[in-house]
C-alpha cells in the first residue's frame, strides 16, 4: 500500500499518525523506516508520537515501538483509540478558546467577541456585551444589554452570579426586564432559550456540563 494513505498530523514535538485500518505491520514499519529514518529528520529530536490503534495486540505494539525506538530512542510512542480523540475540526473555529476579560463594563462600554466570553467583573446599565457563544459573568449583571449567540446560536447561554440586565438576547430571541419592578437575582443564574423564549433560572450544575 502507498505511504500517502498514512496521515501525519501535529507539530514537531507531538505527532499523530493515522494509519488506515487495512494497514499491515510490515507496511507500518516500512513507513516509519522510510519517512523517519531515511530523512534523518527525527535524529536526536525528543518528541511524542501517538498512533491510531488499529486493534494490534500487545506484541505488535511493542514491535512498532521498537521500530521507532531504533530510529530515535528519545521518541515516546503511544497509541490512541478513535473515541479518545477530539477532532479539532468538530469544534467550530469561533468556539475555540473563550475570551477572558477582567474588568467591569460601565455605561457606554462595549465588547463583542466571536467565541465564548468570560467577564470577571460586573455589567452595569448602559453597557453592551456581545458574544458569538456563551457568556459567563463572574460578577453581577445589574443592567445593560447582554447578547449571547450573537450570530444566531439559540443554544448559547448566559451565566452570571446575578442576572438582571436591561435586555437579554440569545440568538435572535429578545427578552427585556420587567417594567414595573427591579429584578433581583437570587444567586447564580443562567439564561437560555426554551420554546422560543428566554428563561432565567437558578444555576444548577446538573445538566450544565453537557453540550
Amino acid at each position: 500500500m502507498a505511504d500517502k494513505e498514512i496521515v501525519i498530523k501535529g507539530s514537531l514535538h507531538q505527532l499523530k499518525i493515522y494509519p488506515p485500518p487495512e494497514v499491515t505491520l510490515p507496511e507500518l514499519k516500512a513507513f516509519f523506516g522510510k519517512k523517519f529514518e531515511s530523512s534523518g529528520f527525527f535524529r536526536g529530536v525528543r518528541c511524542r508520537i501517538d498512533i491510531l490503534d488499529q486493534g494490534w495486540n500487545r506484541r505488535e505494539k511493542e514491535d512498532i515501538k521498537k521500530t521507532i525506538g531504533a530510529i530515535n530512542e528519545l521518541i515516546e510512542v503511544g497509541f490512541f483509540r478513535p473515541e479518545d480523540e477530539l477532532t479539532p475540526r468538530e469544534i467550530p473555529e469561533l468556539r475555540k478558546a473563550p475570551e477572558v476579560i477582567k474588568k467591569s463594563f460601565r455605561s457606554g462600554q462595549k465588547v463583542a467577541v466571536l467565541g465564548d466570553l468570560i467577564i470577571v467583573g460586573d455589567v452595569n446599565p448602559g453597557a453592551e456585551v456581545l458574544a458569538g457563544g456563551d457568556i459567563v459573568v463572574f460578577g453581577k449583571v445589574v443592567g445593560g444589554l447582554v447578547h449571547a449567540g450573537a450570530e444566531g446560536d439559540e443554544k448559547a447561554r448566559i451565566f452570571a452570579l446575578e442576572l438582571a440586565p436591561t435586555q437579554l438576547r440569545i440568538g435572535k430571541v429578545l427578552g427585556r426586564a420587567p417594567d414595573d419592578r427591579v429584578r433581583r437575582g437570587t444567586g447564580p443564574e443562567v439564561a437560555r432559550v426554551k420554546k422560543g423564549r428566554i428563561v432565567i433560572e437558578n444555576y444548577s450544575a446538573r445538566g450544565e456540563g453537557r453540550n
Partner: protein
Amino acid sequence: MGKAIVITSGKGGVGKTTTTANIGMALAILGRSVVLVDADIGLRNLDVVMGLENRIVYDVVDVVEERCRIDQALIKDKRHRNLLLLPAAQTRDKSALKQEQVKDLIQELREEFDYILIDSPAGIEQGFKNAIVGAQEAVIVTTPEVSAVRDADRIIGMLEAGGLKDPRVIINRIRQDMVRRGDMMDIDDMIEILAIDLLGIVPDDEDIIVSTNKGEPIVLNSKSRTGEAFRNIARRIEGEDLPLMNTGREKFVQRIKRMIGIS
C-alpha cells in the same frame, strides 16, 4: 408637515431631557403625534427617563448607518400610542452622526409626525450642531443661576448663527420661597438679559426626581403643579395664549404676573 423643535441649554444638568420627555408626553395627550429624538449620542438618557430603555433594539445611529429602517428603531411609548422615541446609541460618540444625515432623518420624520422634539446634548460642539440642524424652532432650558443664564445666552447666539431665530426659553427649577425672599435670580432679570420670549416656568419639585427615576413623566400626574407647568408649555407650543403658571398660590402667581408685566 410636522414641526421639529430642538430642546437645548448649553449648560448640562438644567433639565433638558426631563423637559423633552414631559413636553412630548403633554403634546401626545393633546392628541398630537410626537417623536422624541435623543441626540445625546454616547450619554443617552431620554429612554431611561421615559422608562423605555429595555425596549431598545435599534437606535438613531443604526438608522443613519442604514442597519435598519426608521420605523424599526422607533419605540412606542407604553402609556401613549401617539408618542414615540428614537433612542440614541450608547456605545458610540457624537462623531457617529453627520449633520447631513440628521437633517435628512428629521425631514423624513416631519412628513409623518406633528412634532419632532430633539433632545440636545449639553455643550456647543458637534453634538449640539447635530441636534439643531434639522430643527425649525428652538426651546432653551435654563435655571435661575448665573452660569446657566450665561450659557443660555451663548446658545441663543449660536442658534441664530445656525438659522434658528426667535428661540423661546423655559426657566426650570424655580423655587418660590427663594424668589419671594429675593434669593433667586429674578425671572424678569433673566428675560431682560436673554431678550427672548418666555415659554414657561417650571417649579423645582422633588417629585421630578421620583418620576424620572421611575421612568414616568410627571405630566401624567394630573395633580402635580410641575406637571401642569409642562402641560401649559405644550399648549403654548400649540399656539394657545395662556397666562403663566397657575400654581394655585395666588401670591406667587401675582408676583410672576407682575414680573413679566401681564397684570
